[in-house]
């Protein structure tokens, strides 16, 4: 007997179960194929038949190695290809080809048929000739001139012929045809089957023919495999299978085919199988549900749409009080106040952590939180389609929800438990091609809600995730139907909460989510980050052209160079120029302060004399600068600075206060901005001529810092002394002298540049600015984002993006981790993110937030089912359950993580997995975690002997 062309033994395939996303562990898998033995010989046509979900398509994909089998062995022409890489498979690709079900989607619509048929030859590194293409078309009975047509100009049958021509172009030994005639008219189907039979005969092809249609199988196949539930239930020659099936399932399949001849009894003839299909729906009830009677609810975004429906629906369910939280109380004027419930308006912008914590204090009686606030670009809140807008959406829809849950869960727990409903909002800006427009953020918000739910389960808080799909509100006017009425969303969500059903999770969204989850999370995250940072990147390349227009009180208009922080918004900072106009130094400093989180502008203060002055430090430029300075009108410039400050305060992206910082001439202007303008803080470097304006020193109305250079000829010692005499020791005024330094010591490229003094002055300036303007970074948020990528999306690149360029991580007891970008990335990628046991759980105990550090205290729990490189390297899984207190100390630089130090007591871990015999050693095993959670457990047992000696001694 000849050897089979393809042989599979005990082939199994498991794929991740996309319906079960996990946060801390690999997804569970589902078995798609199980113990398949399969073979086919040269020239044979083998049918693979089965109903939907039988695994027939997956088997086909394994045979051509589009899927890698999980277990078993697969060989092609005697070579084991079970686990061959894509690279190793390449030489075989010519010999195995595939024809797909839907020629419409498998043929590139933008390519002519010629190009489609040329493509296989690329694999050989040759170029197809005109004659070869014509010959191919002739083989599938299409005229040669079809080469110049596009797929859409062909009928379905013709397109399928092109699909066949492409598959046979390289004269393969084996062709897999997957449902290639379903969807075709019977007549076309007959033609295609006829064609295939001829080709098979002429070319000596081996053909695997996948179909749900047994009649078609019977007509074309020599041998048949019948599949059900991922297994082969019967195999044999076609004639034998159809005439004398041995499996009841095969008989049922055959008997279910209606023949084109009337048979009065056929329909009522009993099925041999189990009768009607299994018509069960999965039980969705997961918890006991929440009793809404007497509950106190807080609804965000309550002014319209679903939010206002929630308010009305809550009133009908016996809720005693509803906080209606909105960004702007004015928007509540149209709210219909339902009877029988106490309505309390509350101002709340969920993008602001300070608002959230204030709300959690104000609404301390809340037992039900409904997170409904959201923005998307379609509601015109966002005018620009850029990274800033995407960030704002992320902040509102994702982080807003997470922060609200964090702030209110202790409140709800203190009130004896309750519920949280998260409306998983749409992020329109974060529209990733591979995910479809609706699913990206849903996937993120959904997995966050899962995590929140897991954390709050023991605290008596029910958490419900709601994906309403397209709801018929003013915000969804751009969505196509079907839509659902907003009242129904509120009803469904509250039904779910009351009945203990945690996902209210309708179809379209579920589909979108599944589409999202079926993609590689790394890929998604990469795209998401790319889409979020694309705008700032663009800004970088065009930044020299970004200007803000300032209208002056006296009817003029001038430009100010503007640089914004990566997240788009921040406090304002006005940079006041030397005498060289808006030159590179000023723009660099503005960009630098933007990186520090400020919206930095450099007003064109020479505009009244000459616009757009941009001078360097050459002798010639210096002469011109000096001439301009001679004619400079300080008083008018001060008005211009005030107008700049006012304009800045009006900008949507300027959050909080506005300060000034100036150099040389600008140093003087900074001083004057403290006396004459509404600036909230002012910093001046080597100011020129302050001594002439000391009369107005008593009008200084904001904190002021001035830096002086000891050798500055423009501020000689006697001038400095006068200034010090007037200002020294005054509240909120800081004067710093840099001995031995000369004028403009902080300008790189100038003769007197001095780096140590520059750094010193810079840190002093920044301290002054931060003190008044902020921004204060939300270290907790940054840390959460880092953990989100580290654990939820498991995207190493995105995790690295939350860190400075050369960060480090050290797991202290084992010294595992990484130092520097590449080292750490390698650690994360291969030894951390996917390397924790399935049931890994972190129970947070406390969190301490300092100026630039955050300390997390937690209990780390897991069952030792796999080797954990970072914690227990080199130790085979013991199957033991471990609980250990763990402390993480996280250090930040700006808004990025710099390093993590992770501490735990390794001895107690080793005791718990049985690697240390605790007898006679002062170690405690799992008790350490238990005592952390319950401090009343016994103390001092390990020092029991010594402890006795102090008994009764005076305290």
């Amino acid at each position, binding site marked *: 007997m000849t050897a089979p062309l393809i042989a599979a033994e005990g082939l199994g395939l498991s794929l991740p179960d996309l319906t079960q996303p996990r946060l801390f562990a690999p997804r569970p898998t589902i078995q798609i194929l199980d113990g398949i033995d399969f073979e086919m010989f040269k020239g044979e046509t083998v049918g693979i038949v089965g*109903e*939907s979900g039988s695994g027939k398509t997956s088997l086909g994909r394994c045979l051509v190695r589009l899927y890698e089998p999980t277990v078993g062995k697969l060989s092609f022409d005697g070579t084991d290809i079970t686990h061959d890489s894509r690279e190793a498979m390449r030489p075989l690709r010519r010999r195995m080809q595939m024809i797909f079900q839907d020629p419409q989607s498998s043929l590139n619509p933008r390519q002519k048929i010629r190009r489609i048929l040329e493509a296989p030859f690329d694999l050989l590194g040759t170029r197809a000739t005109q004659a070869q293409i014509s010959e191919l078309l002739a083989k599938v009975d299409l005229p040669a001139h079809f080469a110049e047509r596009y797929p859409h100009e062909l009928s379905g049958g013709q397109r399928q012929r092109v699909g066949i021509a492409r598959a046979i172009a390289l004269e393969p030994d084996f062709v897999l045809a997957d449902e290639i005639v379903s969807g075709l*008219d*019977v*007549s076309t*189907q*007959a*033609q295609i*089957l*006829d064609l295939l039979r001829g080709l098979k005969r002429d070319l000596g092809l081996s053909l695997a023919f996948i179909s*749900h*249609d*047994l*009649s078609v199988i*019977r*007509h074309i196949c020599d041998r048949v495999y019948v599949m059900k539930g991922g297994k082969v239930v019967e195999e044999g020659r*076609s*004639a034998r299978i*159809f005439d004398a099936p041995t499996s009841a399932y095969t008989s*049922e*399949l*055959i008997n*279910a*085919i*209606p*023949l*084109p*001849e*009337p*048979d009065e009894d*056929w*329909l*009522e003839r009993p*099925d041999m*199988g189990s009768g*009607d*299909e299994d*018509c*069960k*729906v*999965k*039980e*969705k009830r997961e918890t006991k549900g929440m009793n809404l009677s007497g509950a106190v609810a807080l609804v965000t975004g309550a002014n319209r749409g679903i939010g206002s429906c929630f308010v009305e629906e809550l009133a009908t369910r016996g809720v005693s009080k509803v906080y209606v939280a909105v960004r702007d109380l004015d928007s509540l004027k149209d709210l219909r106040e339902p009877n029988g419930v106490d309505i309390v308006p509350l101002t709340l912008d969920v993008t602001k952590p300070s608002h959230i914590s204030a709300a959690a204090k104000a609404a301390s009686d809340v037992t039900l939180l409904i997170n409904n606030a959201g923005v998307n670009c379609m509601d015109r809140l966002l005018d620009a389609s850029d990274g800033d807008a995407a960030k704002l959406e992320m902040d509102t829809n994702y982080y807003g929800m997470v922060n609200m849950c964090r702030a209110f869960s202790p409140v709800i727990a203190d009130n004896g438990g309750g519920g949280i409903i998260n409306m998983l909002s749409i992020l329109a800006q974060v529209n990733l091609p591979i995910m479809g427009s609706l699913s990206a953020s849903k996937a993120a918000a959904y997995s966050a809600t899962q995590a929140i739910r897991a954390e709050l389960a023991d605290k008596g808080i029910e958490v419900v995730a709601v994906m*309403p*799909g*397209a*709801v018929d509100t003013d915000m969804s006017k751009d969505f196509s139907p*079907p*839509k*659902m009425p907003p009242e*129904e969303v509120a009803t*469904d969500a509250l*039904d779910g909460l009351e009945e203990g*059903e945690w996902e209210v*999770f*309708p*179809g*379209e969204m*579920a*589909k979108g989510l599944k589409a999202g989850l079926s993609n590689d999370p790394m890929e998604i995250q990469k795209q998401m980050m790319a889409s979020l940072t694309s705008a700032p990147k663009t800004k970088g390349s065009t930044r020299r052209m970004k200007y803000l227009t300032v209208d002056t009180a006296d009817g003029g208009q001038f430009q100010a160079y503007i640089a914004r922080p990566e997240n788009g918004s921040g406090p304002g900072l006005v940079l006041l120029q030397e005498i060289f106009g808006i030159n590179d130094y000023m723009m660099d400093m503005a960009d630098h302060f933007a990186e520090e989180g400020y919206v930095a502008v450099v007003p064109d203060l020479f505009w009244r004399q000459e616009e757009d002055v941009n001078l360097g430090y050459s002798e010639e430029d210096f002469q011109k600068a000096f001439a301009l300075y001679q004619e400079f009108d300080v008083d008018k410039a001060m008005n211009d600075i005030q107008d700049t400050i006012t304009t800045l305060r009006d900008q949507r992206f300027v959050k909080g206060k506005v300060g000034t910082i100036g150099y040389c001439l600008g140093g003087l202007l900074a001083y004057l901005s403290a006396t004459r303008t509404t600036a909230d803080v002012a910093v001046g470097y080597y100011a020129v001529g302050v001594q002439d304006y000391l009369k107005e020193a008593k009008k200084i109305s904001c904190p002021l810092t001035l830096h002086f250079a000891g050798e500055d000829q423009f501020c000689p010692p006697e001038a400095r002394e006068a200034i010090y005499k007037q200002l020294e020791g005054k509240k909120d005024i800081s004067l710093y002298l840099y001995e031995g330094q000369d004028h403009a010591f902080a300008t790189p490229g100038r003769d007197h540049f001095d780096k140590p003094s520059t750094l010193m002055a810079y840190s002093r300036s920044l301290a002054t600015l931060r003190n008044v303007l902020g921004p204060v970074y939300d270290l907790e948020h940054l840390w959460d984002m880092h953990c989100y990528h580290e654990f939820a999306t498991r995207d190493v690149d995105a995790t690295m993006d939350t860190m400075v360029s050369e960060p480090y991580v050290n797991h202290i007891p084992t010294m595992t981790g990484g130092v520097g970008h590449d080292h750490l990335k390698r650690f994360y990628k291969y030894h951390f993110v996917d390397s924790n046991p399935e049931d890994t759980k972190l129970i947070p105990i406390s969190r301490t937030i300092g100026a630039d550090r955050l300390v997390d205290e937690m209990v780390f729990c897991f069952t030792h089912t796999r080797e954990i490189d970072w914690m227990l390297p080199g130790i085979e899984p013991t199957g033991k359950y471990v609980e250990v207190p763990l402390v993480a100390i996280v250090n930040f630089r700006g808004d990025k993580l710099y390093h993590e130090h992770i501490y735990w007591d390794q001895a107690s871990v080793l005791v718990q997995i049985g690697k240390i015999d605790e007898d006679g050693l002062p170690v405690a095993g799992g008790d350490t975690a238990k005592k952390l959670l319950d401090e009343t457990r016994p103390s001092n047992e390990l020092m029991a002997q010594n402890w006795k000696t102090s008994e009764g001694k005076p305290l």
Partner: protein
Amino acid sequence: MRRPLLDIEGLSAQNAAGQPVLRRVSLMMGPGEVHGLVGQSGAGKTSIAKASLGILPRAVTLTSGSIRFDGLELAGADKSTLDTLLGADIALIPQDPLTALNPSRRIGAQLTDALRLKAGLSRQAALAKAASLLEEVHLTDTVRILRAYPHELSGGMRQRVLIASAFALNPRLIIADEPTSALDVTVQKQILRLIRRLQRDHETAVLFVTHDLGVVAQICDDVTVLFAGAVVEQTTVQSLFSQPVHAYTRALIAANPRYDQPGASLRPISEEVIEATLKGISA
């Protein structure tokens, strides 16, 4: 014959380009009869079904002929006449149960819409009625199914829901548009059986649109074979398969693969037959 329930006479329609979609189609159905409309894609099956529901796409216009339901003219009828009839007297079982259901609403909400609007039932009464309808289509897990979303049901279950919905107001005519084409063959058999049992119990007439001659043979009493918008043969199911008269009908039957006749070669419908048929139609 008793007074016809559906009487289509000389119905012609054309598309926006002026090309004929239906050509002088006549068809008569008595109460409780199952009438098959069979033909290849583009033959006009769905256009007849849609015309009978008054839901032809905007681009298709009726140019002549009439469609009478129990004596009432539907061609050119105003919207309120149709609204009164649809759901109550004439109901639809659509082809694709997934797109026919709103994916974001629960089955219960969708099943009760018609009961509340057309039968004037309260929400609770409508839900109770919906549950009994589900039992009638052998969906016994009614509480959970009413709370489920369409995507949580299998294709067969969704089709059962739509059948329950079609029979909800006990209509006299049901238009079934390829109701089993998207289903696995074993489920198809169960659904066909269900439709026939309900149809007999309620004495409902069914206009059954399908491309599958096997399905026609097993469920229909009469059949109309369509080609290019015209009727090529109209007869009882028995005679259609025992003595097909028209060459096109014979060719259509011969193009079907049959598992019980493996030796017979499949014959695509020949150019000659198609040309001759077209000639006959235009004549």
